[in-house]
């Protein structure tokens, strides 16, 4: 049986009906990792048997295998953020999301490759080497959760978890042709997620079938005393995909700009026509501060990163360089342990926060963030949700942007605004370029309106089959 063509909930159904055992399912995907990972480098660590899980769970994903991004702590296993500085660090505890997955009966297969400390949009900054895009192995899978997106795309796992700070779930989901959700800020506990930008970071699910994304979100979300930003919310109801008539979809005009590839533009417009033909109202809206988003984001996210990454000093865990004095331990360990992009971001953040520059950069960016937030507030008075391209282009070539950090940063231009505003946003596959590369559309909702995003995506998936396409080699 081709289990990799089934959704997670279909696999769980077969286990419940005793047509498949936990072990058969685990082995099937474990073997696919062994067979295909050498060409993709999407998984950095996999386990011979699943980590202990609840065999009596009645969750809709009980028994489903899952891969976890390598910045989410797994008790008793190495967790490295794809960085040399954390090589050898064995997490002494489980992150909250991992505890929840285990309780819900999911079988953890392994850890996914990523950009070092989630700094990147291409998965090329990993200390384990780049991840390849299953649709074209000369191209990047996107980043930073590129490994998590690639495993679902190639059928090495039915679902996975990633993390999103400025687009790190949505952009790779779009490049790899799968669904990926960044939940509302506060929806999912970050306890045990190694911090990058604490006012942005959210953990979220990847899957092909949108129903799986919804189930996974219900499993991992909720209030956690160990993350004071997390909030309690009612679990989402099952998809309601019967009717979208009267739904008002906003299309921000600032997102259809120079630099948007023709193929992507065409594909998104086709999806918009589809919704219109089915009774939705398409309305042009404006988010006037959009052109400042990337600048605001890189000041704030780098500042938060420079502070969060100060804990990596070689003293209590991870890599330590030999040195004569304590301060030399810091300098040498951090010089050797961090890659170039990590150093760049730490230095950029240190600069923005340093005496004499704080007001001109960090404080200004915090104020500009307010404008971006207000743009969305005003726009959501005119529409129920928004649709934009997830990324201006399809997957780019490996090496193409590595030495041009600014051009790399600009590839996040469409995902960053929703992150600055703390809003939920979902990328859903909606077609291919003329070169056969997947294109994703981003659906942005108002705070805690994930249900609306899922219903629209569910309606779309019921009537299209983009999400069922699998790269030929992995059929």
């Amino acid at each position, binding site marked *: 049986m081709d289990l990799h063509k089934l959704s997670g909930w279909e696999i769980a159904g077969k286990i419940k009906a005793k047509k498949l055992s936990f072990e058969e399912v685990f082995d099937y995907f474990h073997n696919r990792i062994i067979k295909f990972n050498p060409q993709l480098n999407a998984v950095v660590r996999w386990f011979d048997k699943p980590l202990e899980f609840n065999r009596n769970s009645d969750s809709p994903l009980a028994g489903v295998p899952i891969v976890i991004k390598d910045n989410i702590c797994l008790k008793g296993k190495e967790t490295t953020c794809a960085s040399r500085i954390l090589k050898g660090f064995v997490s002494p*505890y489980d992150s909250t999301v991992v505890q929840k997955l285990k309780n819900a009966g999911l079988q953890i297969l392994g850890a996914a490759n990523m950009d070092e400390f989630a700094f990147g949009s291409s998965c090329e900054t990993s200390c384990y080497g780049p991840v390849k895009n299953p649709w074209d192995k000369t191209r990047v899978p996107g980043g930073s959760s590129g490994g998590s997106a690639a495993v679902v795309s190639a059928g090495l796992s039915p679902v996975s978890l990633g993390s999103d700070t400025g687009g790190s779930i949505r952009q790779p989901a779009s490049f790899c042709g799968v669904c990926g959700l960044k939940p509302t800020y506060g929806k999912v506990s970050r306890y045990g997620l190694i911090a990058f930008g604490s006012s942005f970071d959210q953990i979220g699910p990847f899957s092909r079938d949108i129903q799986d994304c919804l189930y996974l979100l219900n499993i991992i979300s909720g209030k956690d005393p160990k993350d004071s930003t997390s909030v309690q919310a009612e679990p989402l109801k099952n998809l309601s995909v019967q009717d979208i008539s009267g739904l008002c979809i906003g299309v921000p005009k600032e997102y259809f700009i120079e630099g948007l590839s023709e193929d992507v533009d065409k594909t998104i417009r086709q999806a918009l026509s589809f919704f219109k033909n089915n009774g939705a109202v398409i309305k042009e809206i404006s988010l006037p501060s959009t052109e400042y988003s990337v600048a605001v984001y890189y000041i704030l996210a780098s500042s938060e990163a*420079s502070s969060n990454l100060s804990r990596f000093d070689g003293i209590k865990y991870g890599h330590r360089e030999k040195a004569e004095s304590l301060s030399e331990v810091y*300098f040498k360990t951090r010089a050797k342990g961090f890659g170039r992009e990590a150093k760049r971001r730490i230095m950029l953040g240190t600069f923005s926060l340093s005496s004499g520059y704080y007001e001109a950069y960090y404080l200004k960016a915090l104020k500009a963030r307010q404008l971006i937030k207000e743009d969305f507030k005003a726009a959501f008075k005119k529409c129920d949700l928004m649709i934009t391209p997830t990324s201006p282009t399809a997957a780019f070539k490996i090496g193409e942007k590595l030495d041009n950090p600014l051009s790399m940063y600009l590839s996040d231009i469409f995902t960053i605004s929703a992150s600055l505003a703390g809003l939920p946003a979902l990328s859903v596959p909606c077609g291919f370029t003329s070169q056969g590369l997947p294109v994703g559309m981003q659906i942005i909702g108002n705070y805690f309106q994930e249900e609306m995003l899922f219903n629209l995506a569910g309606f779309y998936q019921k009537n299209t089959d983009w999400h069922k396409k699998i790269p030929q080699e992995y059929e």
Partner: protein
Amino acid sequence: MKLDKKTVKYIANLARIELSGEEAAYFEPQMQRIIEYVEKINGLNLEGIKPVLSFSPNTNVFRPDQIQRFENTEGLIANFPQKQDRFVKVPKVIE
């Protein structure tokens, strides 16, 4: 703001990252371009705008001030890069 090699080295020092002259020369033009780019925000009128300090709907999250013992102390100790008995070992701090 014009960034020079000296400033790059100064920032690296604040960030506790040892940087060779060669590396400083590599980062300088890249950081210069990024900083020029982010200075775009000077085009915004921010008069009277309040900074965003938090997105969480939660404010003043309280909990009882009770000690909760971490259950896996051995797991923490096992991660020490250098240790003596159950203590972290570091180079001499006070001369």
